[in-house]
C-alpha cells in the first residue's frame, strides 16, 4: 500500500514537473542582450508592425484611448479583456523589459510569470522575430501613457484558473520560431512570416476544437468565428492579385470584404506596403486547397424558391440586377460569387439582417453600403431569398433554413 502511494506521488510529481517544463521551455533563449529602444527608425518600424498585427483593434475599446486595453473578446468560455499596452508604469507596460515583452509575445507569459490566455494569439506571435518584437515594444513605449487598470477576465470555472491554462498550453502550445523554407521564394517566405506570425490569420481562418485550440492553423481552411457567427472562409488557392487588391482596397471587381474582415482592412491591411500584401497573397495562393465539401443539407423546395424569387425581385434586384449581375464599381455581383455558395451561409444571413459597408480605404474612400433588412424581413423571408440566390444563375447549394437565420440573428460583435 505504502509503495503504491509512493508510486502515485512520484507520478503526480512527474506530471507536475512535465507540466511546469512544458510551460516554461523556451524562456531562456529569449532573454537576449538589451537593445536601444529609442531609435526613431525602430519606433517607426514598430508602428508599421503593430498595424500588420492589428494590435490596436483588440487593445482599444470602441472610442477609448488607443492601446489602453479593456476591450472584451467574447469566447465560448467567457469574456477575455485585453490589457493596457501604453507605457504607464503602474497599469501599462512601462516597467517591462524588452525580454519580458518578448516572452509575452513568444511564450504567452506576463511580466510576473502568469500564463496568458490564448485569445492573445501567442500561438501565432511565437513566430515573430526578436528584432520585430523589440520594434513593437519600442513603438508601444513611445505612446502616450494612460493610467487604466486591467479589467479582470470574466471566464467560467475551470477556465478561469492558471492550472487549466497550464494544461491547455501543455496540450496545444509549442513555442517556436519562423522557419523559412529554402525551396520557396523570398516573397513566399515573407508572406508566410506575416500570415503565420503577426497577421495571426489563423485566429479566425482556422476552425477550433472543443477547447478552443486552432486545428491545423497553417492550412487556413476556414471556420465559423465562435459567437460572432461570421464565416472566415478558407484562404487557400485564391488568385493572389485579387487577394492583394482586396486587402488593400477592401473591394475588388467581384467581391467585397465585409463584417469583421472589413474592420481588419480599415485598421490593418490597407496600411501595409504593396510588396507585403503581395507576399501574403502569394503565400495564401500556394496553400493546398481542401476538397470542397459538397453541399451539406437539402436542396430548397420549389415553394421556398418561388417565395425567394419574389423577395429578390422586390428588395434586391434594384441594385444586384435581375440576373444577379450587380453594377460595376458599385454593387457586387451575386451571380458566380464564391461567397454566395459557401457553407455554412452565415455571412449571407449577417449581411441581409445587419447590412454592411466595406471598409473606407485610400483606394475606395466612399464605399457603397448594403441596407439592413432585420426589421423588414422575417426569418422565413431571409431563408427563402438566400436559398433562391444560392440556386439561381447556375448556382447549386443547400437550402437556408429559417432556424439558421434565427440562430445567427443573436450574434455578438465585440
Amino acid at each position, binding site marked *: 500500500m505504502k509503495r503504491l502511494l509512493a508510486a502515485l506521488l512520484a507520478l503526480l510529481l512527474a506530471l507536475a514537473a512535465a507540466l511546469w517544463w512544458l510551460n516554461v521551455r523556451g524562456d531562456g533563449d529569449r532573454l537576449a542582450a538589451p537593445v536601444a529602444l529609442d531609435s526613431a527608425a525602430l519606433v517607426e518600424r514598430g508602428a508599421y508592425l503593430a498595424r500588420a498585427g492589428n494590435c490596436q483593434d483588440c487593445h482599444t*475599446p*470602441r*472610442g477609448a484611448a488607443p492601446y489602453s486595453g479593456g476591450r472584451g473578446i467574447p469566447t465560448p468560455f467567457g469574456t477575455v479583456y485585453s490589457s493596457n499596452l501604453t507605457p504607464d508604469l503602474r497599469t501599462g507596460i512601462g516597467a517591462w523589459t524588452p525580454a519580458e515583452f518578448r516572452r509575452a509575445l513568444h511564450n504567452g507569459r506576463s511580466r510576473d510569470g502568469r500564463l496568458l490566455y490564448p485569445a492573445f494569439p501567442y500561438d501565432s506571435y511565437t513566430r515573430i522575430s526578436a528584432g520585430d518584437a523589440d520594434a513593437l515594444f519600442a513603438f508601444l513605449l513611445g505612446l502616450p501613457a494612460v493610467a487604466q487598470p486591467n479589467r479582470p477576465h470574466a471566464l467560467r470555472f475551470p477556465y478561469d484558473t492558471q492550472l487549466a491554462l497550464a494544461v491547455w498550453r501543455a496540450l496545444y502550445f509549442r513555442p517556436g520560431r519562423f522557419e523559412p523554407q529554402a525551396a520557396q521564394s523570398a516573397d513566399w517566405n515573407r508572406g508566410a512570416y506575416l500570415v503565420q506570425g503577426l497577421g495571426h490569420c489563423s485566429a479566425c481562418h482556422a476552425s477550433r476544437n472543443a477547447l478552443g485550440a486552432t486545428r491545423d492553423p497553417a492550412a487556413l481552411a476556414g471556420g465559423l468565428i465562435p459567437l460572432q457567427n461570421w464565416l472566415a472562409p478558407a484562404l487557400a488557392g485564391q488568385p493572389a492579385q485579387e487577394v492583394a487588391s482586396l486587402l488593400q482596397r*477592401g473591394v475588388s471587381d467581384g467581391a467585397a470584404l465585409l463584417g469583421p474582415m*472589413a*474592420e481588419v*482592412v*480599415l485598421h490593418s491591411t490597407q496600411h501595409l506596403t504593396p510588396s507585403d500584401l503581395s507576399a501574403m497573397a502569394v503565400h495564401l495562393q500556394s496553400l493546398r486547397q481542401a476538397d470542397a465539401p459538397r453541399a451539406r443539407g437539402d436542396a430548397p423546395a420549389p415553394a421556398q424558391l418561388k417565395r425567394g424569387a419574389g423577395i429578390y425581385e422586390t428588395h434586391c434586384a434594384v*441594385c444586384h440586377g435581375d440576373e444577379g449581375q450587380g453594377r460595376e464599381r*458599385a454593387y457586387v455581383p451575386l451571380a458566380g460569387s464564391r461567397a454566395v455558395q459557401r457553407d455554412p451561409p452565415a455571412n449571407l444571413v449577417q449581411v441581409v439582417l*445587419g*447590412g*454592411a*459597408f*466595406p*471598409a*473606407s480605404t485610400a483606394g475606395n*474612400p*466612399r*464605399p*457603397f*453600403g*448594403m*441596407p*439592413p*433588412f*432585420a*426589421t*423588414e424581413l422575417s426569418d422565413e423571408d431571409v431563408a427563402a431569398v438566400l436559398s433562391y440566390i444560392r440556386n439561381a444563375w447556375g448556382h447549386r447549394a443547400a437550402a437556408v433554413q429559417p432556424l439558421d437565420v434565427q440562430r445567427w440573428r443573436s450574434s455578438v*460583435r465585440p
Partner: protein
Amino acid sequence: MAQRLLACTGCHGKDGRAASDGYYPRIAGKPAGYLFRQLRAFRDGQRPYALMSNLLAPLDDAYLQDIATHFATLDLPHAAPPPPRADAATLRRGQALAQQGDAARHIPACQACHGTALTGVGEDVPGLLGLPVDYLNAQLGAWRTGARRAEAPDCMAQIAQRLQPQDINALAHWLAAQTVPAQPAPEAPGPAPMRCGSMQGPR
C-alpha cells in the same frame, strides 16, 4: 452619393426623409456637425445601438463627414404631422416646457438652444420638429438614464435628468404634433443658457 448610402435610407426613408409614423428619425436637413457627431458616437460606442455600430464600424472619419454633409444638404419638404395622440393637458404641459421651460426646476426652454422655431441652430444643434413621437420619447428617456450621452459638459443629460417621465411624454407628443415651417433654415448660434460639450471644441 445617394447610391452609396442606400444602406441608410432603408430605415431612415428615401433620401433620409423618414415616414412620419415610424420609429426611425428623419436625417435629411439635420445640421452636418450634429450628424457627424452622432455617426461617430454610434461607431465608437458612445451611443449604443448595435445595428448602427456594426454598420459603421469599418468607416473612417472622412467618410462619416461626407455622409453627414450629404444628408445635411438635402432640402426636402416635410409631411404634415400626424394628429396628436395625447390629451389637451399633456400637450399644454409639453408646449410650456418647450417654450418657457421650468425655472423652478432649472429646466431651460427647448427654444433656448434649439431655436425659437425649434428647427435647429448652427452646425451642432438639431431641430426637434418632424420627428416621430416614439423616437422623441426614446431619446429623451435615453438622455435621462444615461444610455445616450454627449461630450462633457453633457447639458442635454443634465436637463433630461431634471425631467419627470410625464414631462418627457408631454414634450414628445407636443413636439411631434407641430407643423414644420416651410423654410426650416437653422438659426445662427446665440448665447446658450448652459455650457455644452457638443456645441463647441474640436470635432
